């Protein structure tokens, strides 16, 4: 069944059709939202909100962009709103940012796969939200530079410059850890190149 057929069925009240749409795009939305906010209840909540928003505005979906792109756009916007709320809350209650470089160090020394993922996600969350969004869309989700520009509604040149700046910062954060853990093979490659 195509997305269009499912949307039509869901619009006329078929809940199973909408459930199928959620199953199809859950991973895409999860990658965006968790990439932006990190794993946890907040990301889950925003993920649910993405589909609820879509459910409410389904009749207005004209299919100009693919459903995946449309949902990613909603996910990015809701994640950015959530980051803003989080910042306001921190300012209001004088909360300190929980993630520090030492957290990353302890993760890097403790394990391999899941921890590596956490290191990457924490490093991404250290970036400004506008840089986070280009990294998540381009490097995590694999959208092209043009698609990333379309989703974020910014020029391609801006995507490229944000990507460059974000990568420079991520390199500073990640190279020490990935040089010490599963990046060893890569480091050997680097050493052999040099």
């Amino acid at each position: 069944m195509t997305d269009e057929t499912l949307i039509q069925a869901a619009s006329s009240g078929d809940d199973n059709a909408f459930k199928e749409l959620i199953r199809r795009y859950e991973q895409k939305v999860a990658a965006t939202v968790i990439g932006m906010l990190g794993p946890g209840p907040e990301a889950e909540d925003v993920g649910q909100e993405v589909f609820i928003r879509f459910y409410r505005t389904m009749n207005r979906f004209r299919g100009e962009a693919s459903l995946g792109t449309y949902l990613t756009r909603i996910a990015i916007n809701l994640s950015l709103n959530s980051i803003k709320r989080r910042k306001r809350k921190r300012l209001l209650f004088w909360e300190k940012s929980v993630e520090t470089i030492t957290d990353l160090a302890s993760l890097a020394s403790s394990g391999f796969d899941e921890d590596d993922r956490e290191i990457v996600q924490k490093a991404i969350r250290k970036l400004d939200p506008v840089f986070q969004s280009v990294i998540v869309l381009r490097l995590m989700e694999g959208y092209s530079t043009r698609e990333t520009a379309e989703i974020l509604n910014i020029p391609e040149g801006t995507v490229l410059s944000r990507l460059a700046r974000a990568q420079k910062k991520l390199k500073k954060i990640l190279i020490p850890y990935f040089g010490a853990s599963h990046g060893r093979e890569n480091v050997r490659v680097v050493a052999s190149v040099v």
Partner: protein
Amino acid sequence: MDEKMCELLLRSFDANLTPDEQILLDEALAISDTLRLEQEQIKIVRDAIGQGASHSFRPFFAERVMQRIQSSVKSYERLDPFFESLMAAFRPVMIAAGVLIAIMLSYNAVRHDGALMAGVLTEPDVSLEEAFDPVYDWIQE
């Protein structure tokens, strides 16, 4: 390391370079160890980010979303009769208020005898002097 070359290197991962730029970058990579190291480090970072994506929420995500949608629909349905009864109760009040406003407007219009709309809708402006030191014509009489 040349900053311009570094930018060209970063851009080469995400955009098509022009043939001239590509030649320039290839030449620089051939002679610069630092630039090659930079290229490898960027690859490591990009690979790590690519692998760092989490592609799932907790199990039964779709069911939880549907539950939230259904509960919001139900609460809307529950609120709907409430608002309808509220409207029914206040409808006579709204009609009475409308009639009263219309009477007041027409009364003002008649009294001011073709005055401006401001005069019809509101009381004429009263200056501070008039408010604190009113002239009572009947005293003189």
